[in-house]
């Protein structure tokens, strides 16, 4: 489930994927799932749906630290499951910084250096733009459903709607560090919470939907917060302010030249 979570995190920052997944969830998961197969089906269809969509969104990211808050605005484009571009637009200090994900490769552009850097694998788990997200959270969208076994472990209520709680455990031998993930999906297909646990069952971090509204005509987690349990008082909050879905994204968008010199 880690991969899904990563995907989901990714979506949190790049709402296109989120929305794609959510749309599908909405369509396919109207009937509440009640068994393991159904749990997997929900995630599987979310994943499949995601793959087939494109998006363009404007997102604000607030990074809360003991030393102060940092607020950034970014614009993102996604297509399919392996192409994504995020470009920061504000504040001036961060504007122009961009991250391009092409398949399994991640490229970073820094306008001050005027240089595109391909991230080495060892850097993938480092913090992305000083937030609680890592580069890994942005990428690795594939094999999400396949590497875990999913089980419906309960239900709760959110905003008058039923929320299904799915426990996802990595399949043996898969290169996944997490012990398990617990994912909450609301009956209308909105992911409300993703919790990451270490192998001893201790929660490491969690992402929660703080505000669910309508965006681009769909129910959507407009405000999502990522918290690391070992660092109380710190979090990263992602707010999607505008989004379009299933639009035609020009093919030049996801190129290194566009990463460096935006058209």
């Amino acid at each position: 489930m880690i991969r899904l979570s990563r995907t989901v995190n990714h979506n949190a920052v790049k709402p296109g994927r989120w929305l794609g997944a959510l749309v599908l969830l909405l369509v396919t998961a109207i009937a509440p799932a009640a068994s393991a197969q159904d749990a997997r089906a929900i995630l599987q269809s979310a994943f499949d749906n995601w793959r087939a969509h494109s998006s363009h969104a404007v997102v604000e990211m607030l990074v809360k630290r003991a030393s102060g808050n940092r607020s950034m605005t970014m614009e993102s484009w996604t297509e399919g499951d392996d192409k994504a571009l995020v470009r920061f637009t504000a504040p001036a200090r961060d504007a122009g910084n961009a991250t391009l994900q092409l398949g399994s490769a991640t490229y970073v552009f820094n306008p001050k250096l005027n240089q595109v850097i391909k991230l080495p694998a060892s850097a993938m788990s480092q913090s992305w733009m000083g937030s609680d997200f890592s580069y890994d959270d942005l990428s690795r969208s594939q094999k999400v459903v396949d590497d875990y076994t999913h089980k419906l472990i309960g239900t709760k209520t959110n905003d008058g709607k039923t929320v299904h709680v799915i426990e996802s455990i990595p399949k043996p031998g898969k290169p996944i560090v997490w012990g398990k993930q617990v994912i909450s999906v609301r009956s209308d297909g909105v992911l409300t919470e993703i919790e990451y646990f270490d192998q001893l069952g201790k929660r490491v971090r969690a992402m929660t939907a703080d505000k669910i509204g309508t965006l681009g005509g769909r129910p959507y987690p407009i405000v999502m917060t990522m918290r690391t349990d070992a660092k109380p008082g710190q979090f990263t909050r992602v707010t999607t302010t505008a989004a379009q879905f299933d639009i035609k994204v020009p093919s030049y968008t996801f190129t290194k030249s566009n990463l460096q010199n935006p058209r």
Partner: protein
Amino acid sequence: MTNTLKTFTPLAWRNLWRNPRRTVITLIVVSIGLWSVLFFNSFLNAWMQASKDATLSLLIGQGQIHAPGYLDDPSIEALMPPPSGKLLAALNDPRISNWVARLQLPGVVESEYKTLPINIMGVDPEAEKHISSIPGKVVEGHYLTSTSDAGVVIGLHLAERLKTGLGRRVILMSQNTEGKLSEQSFDVIGLFDADQATEDYYAFTGIKAAQQYVGLKNQIAQIAFAIPVEENLDPVLSKLKQAAPDLDIRSWKELSVYLATSDSFMKGFIYVWLAVVFSLMAIGIVNTQLMAVFERTHEFGLLRALGMKSRRVLLLVTLESTFLIGFGVLLGMLLSGLSIYALSGGIDLSGFAAGLEMAQGGQVLFPKLDPVAFLVFSLLVWLLGILVALWPARRASRLSPVEAMRYAS
């Protein structure tokens, strides 16, 4: 000359004991000084040996073989096939007690909490037990059991940094033969306790498991060999180089420059110590001898007045110093010989283990008596002692008989 010596030897000897207190003080100065040099030398050597053994037996061995270019850029492209033919025959030389083949690749290790750089070491556990001390340093869990054991043994400190532990899985990532990234989960089956750098630097797994993981057939990165007798190192090395001229073959001195440098530094350091101790000893000797000459002014004046030549006075006083310092040197040799013998069973420094770990030292030192150093240092102290004692002797010989006779002591 012989006759003179025959006369002067008993004279000088008796003169020494006319003032036993002064003589004993000088004896103590000389013998303690020499004892400190000799004992310190053997202690330092033992220390050096212990830390060298500890470091080399960890992983390095007395030498290693790599493909050319591997040490500059340890990548999957700079590997070599397992030894065969001439090289294999040379490695099976009886002077090489053991050798192992390893696959060492740079990579990263990932846990739930952290991602850290690491060297992935594919090893043959059985062979490794004979050459490396790490299998014996596993304090939790167990060492690898076979070449295809896909568990991983990591250092205690690394496990602490990763916040992982025994029985949990970590992900190892490394470049594979296709130039892509291989990632695989490995269960932590053992934790070893070595120095912190080693604990942080290596993750051990079975060599076959490691080869399979990055898509290799049987290529290896490194052959490490042990040569128990130091003198055999150079001949065996040149024999290996002859057998495999295309490979990069190096001794521990080239592989661990730090160790080789500290080795030669320690050897030079004893001379610094000798110089310091000897300066103090010289002050002691000159001071007491000058005092003696001063007290005996009247006596020297009388001897001169009776017709003794000044050269003879010089000889007499020098003979006295020769006996005095020589006796002190013998005493010092005896003392240091006894104390080295008493400690030859080993000095256990495990009480300072934490500090020693940083210096990569061994925990038990075995001081040994090095006969050459023993004789050389003793002789050196004796001769230098006589040399500085020439000054008071010269003063005694230069006394004017008339003035000296008048001198009331």
